[in-house]
């Protein structure tokens, strides 16, 4: 056997996870994706809150400028 095919078989074996790959990989995917959403949602909300705050400040400034 060539080393490359051997390596490929090794990788395929790893992803098959003894026939349980169809259950195992989705569990790991859910874990990674849900936590990524957890962090991402916060940074999006932070950006939105800051934008709203700046808008509020700008409107107040405009009100104070007009007599």
């Amino acid at each position, binding site marked *: 056997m060539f080393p490359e095919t051997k390596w490929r078989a090794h990788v395929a074996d790893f992803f098959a996870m003894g026939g349980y790959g169809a259950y195992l990989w989705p569990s790991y995917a859910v874990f990674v994706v849900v*936590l990524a959403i957890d962090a991402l949602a916060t940074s999006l909300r932070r950006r939105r809150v800051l934008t709203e705050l700046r808008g509020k400040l700008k409107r107040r400034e405009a009100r104070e400028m007009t007599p």
Partner: protein
Amino acid sequence: MNPFVLWFHKIGSPPTFYRIAGAFVPWLFGIAIALGAVALYGGLVVAPRDYQQGDAYRIIFVHVPCAWMGLFAYGFMALNAFIALVWRIKLSEILAMASAPIGAAFTFITLVTGSLWGKPMWGTWWTWDARLTSELVLLFLYLGVIGLYHAIEDRRQAARAASFLALIGIVNVPIVHFSVNWWNTLHQAQTVRLLGPSKISGDMLWPLLTMTLATHIWFFASLLARSRVGLLELEGGKDWAREVALADVPGNKMARARG
């Protein structure tokens, strides 16, 4: 005032907390991700195959740490809810409300990975046994707290009402934990113990404990990040929040580094 109380007041003041938490957040996220990667390598590559469950048991490395975090986050939320209700500390309200979505995320992962583990091992995705049902109740409690917090207009009143619900729901935490002992369930009993020997071999145990540490650090990273946003929202009219908003203009990298 004694120095400890003074220190606590200083840390607990929104602008100070915002600044200090901001310095910790990227480090905590970074350490959590690095530890998580090591644990995944340990769990998927280094740990040997289980003699009974084959490779399917490897779901344990995400399922169990998330299950623990679901309960830990609830405990943390309830503790802060208690402080918020008794001493009316603003920061505690924010911390309690920030832990709810993180706890809900971990509980959701626990339920989904448990279902994916149950199918090949028990032959079913779901069964209404004590452990699974109480874990689902835990998720609904989190969703109830989040929902109630967003249903009331006044932010501080909303936080207090949701804190009250969180405190009542604490009765479910021991039920989840002891359900495998109190009732006959399909769910296997505890394998890892704090007191006494664990029923698991060392090369399976270290990835599990590393992932447990990683999820704890992730919880605090996310908690601090969420609390910062919560404080900004709550104190939008105050000077410090105004300064943060004006310093943190998109595209202005220097200002963002300082903020």
